[in-house]
């Protein structure tokens, strides 16, 4: 049928002048473009994001790394049978690798490999507690400030400004120096999280400001849905994506913060196994025995790298604008 439409002008023009070439009209058959694919499942942001993420090799690389870190944290016994604290022998102080002790010994004569394996859960626990804390605080502050606006927004945003104005490592240093008798995974997570939430709140607030202008929100108002229900049922689920994206990166930042505080000596007590503590202990011997410092640093860096990589994948998958930049 399309041929019939095409034929007449082409033949007409070629009949008029033979030395002019006129290209035949190109037309895609209607069936190819205008058909509604009923069989396909309806897509949404999350399904699109998952499709995008799983097609990328770095998603799988970071995913496997994170899985490995999780397994090491949950089941350290699978990877080492050497007790991290009890089998230390001062005779082996700063010793090189031997059979069964692949990474050598610390200054105290403890097995470096075993201490790294057993320190994994500390870093991960701190990271998870911190992001739970920052997400809860950030969502509460950001959602109410963005959705209700007015004086509540001014009030909550000013509180956020105050916490945001203090660099959170400095704040954590102050809290941890005051809490010197109460150093634990919980206090350090609190010290980091209590000053890290305003960035989450800001991101969510900005997103809610644009989502609450949407027609479906207007429709809910028109139907008489209560404000609180609109916030939790319609606005929040549609504004939460950027929060999810930065949460993974915050987890990495929290792990770094814990290691930094422990490295400074105001983090976890020396009785708690932590990569930051190991690096702190090893720094005096950097000239003679760099290995005791390098191995925990590598473990720390790889873990942080995995979470940052995953955060990037999630951010790009959830943000069509970022996808275009690849």
């Amino acid at each position, binding site marked *: 049928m399309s041929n019939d439409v095409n034929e007449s002008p082409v033949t007409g023009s070629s009949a008029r002048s033979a030395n002019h070439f006129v290209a035949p009209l190109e037309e895609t058959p209607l069936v190819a473009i205008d058909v509604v694919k009923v069989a396909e499942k309806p897509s949404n942001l999350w399904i699109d994001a998952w499709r995008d993420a799983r097609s990328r090799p770095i998603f799988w690389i970071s995913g496997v790394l994170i899985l490995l870190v999780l397994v090491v944290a949950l089941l350290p016994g699978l990877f080492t049978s050497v007790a991290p604290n009890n089998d230390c022998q001062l005779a082996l102080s700063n010793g090189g690798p031997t059979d069964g002790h692949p990474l050598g010994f610390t200054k105290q004569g403890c097995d470096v490999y075993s201490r790294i394996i057993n320190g994994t859960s500390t870093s991960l626990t701190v990271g998870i507690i911190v992001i739970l804390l920052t997400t809860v605080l950030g969502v509460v502050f950001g959602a109410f400030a963005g959705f209700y606006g007015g004086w509540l927004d001014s009030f909550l945003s*000013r509180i956020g400004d105050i916490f945001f104005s203090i660099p959170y*490592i400095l704040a954590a240093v102050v809290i941890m120096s005051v809490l*010197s008798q109460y150093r634990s995974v919980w206090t350090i997570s609190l010290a980091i999280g209590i000053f890290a939430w305003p960035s989450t709140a800001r991101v969510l607030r900005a997103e809610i400001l644009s989502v609450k202008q949407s027609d479906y929100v207007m429709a809910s108002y028109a139907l008489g849905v209560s404000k609180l229900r609109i916030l939790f049922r319609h606005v929040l689920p549609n504004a939460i994506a950027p929060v999810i994206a930065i949460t993974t990166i915050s987890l990495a930042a929290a792990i770094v913060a814990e290691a*930094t505080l422990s490295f400074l000596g105001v983090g976890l007590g020396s009785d708690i196994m932590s990569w930051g503590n190991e*690096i702190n202990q090893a720094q005096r011997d950097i000239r003679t025995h760099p290995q005791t410092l390098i191995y925990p*640093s590598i473990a*720390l860096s790889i873990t942080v*790298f995995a979470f940052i990589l995953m955060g990037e994948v999630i951010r790009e998958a959830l943000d069509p604008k970022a996808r275009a930049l690849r």
Partner: protein
Amino acid sequence: MAGYILRRLLQAIPVFIGTTFLIYFMVFALPGDPIIALFGDKTPNPAIVAQLRQQYHLDQPFIVQYLIYMGGIFQGNFGVSFSGQPVIEILARTFPVTLRLAVIALLMETIAGILVGMVAGLRKGKLFDGTTLAISLILISLPVFVIAFVAQFVFGVQLGWARTTVGDGAPIQDLILPAIVLASISFAQIVRLTRSSVIETSSLDFVRTAYSKGLGRRRIIPVHILRNSLIPVVTYLATDFGVLLVGATVTEGIFNVPGVGNTLYQAIIRGEGPTVVSFVTVMVLIYLLVNLAVDLLYGLLDPRIRYVK
């Protein structure tokens, strides 16, 4: 413009009061005792504890302590460190060093970051782009003390190109290595920012117009693309300057740079709680002032900002 400056200054007042209050409140309300903590495991002499308490006004009610401190700040009195030196004198000695270090680091990261980011953005999807993206992600993942130790060990101990610690008077050549360490992480961020900004600007209509009216790449890239891509980069650089001024604690500590950060580092290591608190307060104030100056500068550079409520 005058209205904008006034509004911005008025906004800064509650934040200034809030931050100082918050730090004081934390120290006051948290269960630890900074004076007892000073003695570590030893049992303190009650008379000395009482004297120290009086010296730091810790025997007064919270709000009085806070007002005494705030009154002091307005007279240029930021407290006394545990070695008995006024904090303001220590600042006068150490701040120029930190400032020098921050400026060197900022210059390095700006020049290198914008150049690399621009080339990566213009060659989006090519090998150079992919390599720089991977390197920048790795740099961002490395905690600053890891970079500092590796640099110190490789360049200082093994290759002997630089001194591992900074010497007397902090000469420029000793500051290069710590500055590179400080610049490395921000460098990665600047590369990423410049890259995405260049890609975004390159696809805008005015760039296409410039191409279609026959301008060459040598004019379009610096004048049309780069100039319009640098706004988010300048924003980042300005805040990073504030971070460099206060956040160099770890790097200054490791390289023994005689700056503000190192003073804080030494106080933390020795567990001198009150000194830590007064230095952190001063640093937060510096940070606030830099951010305020940056905001005012923006109002000057970008007229749109002045009218946003």
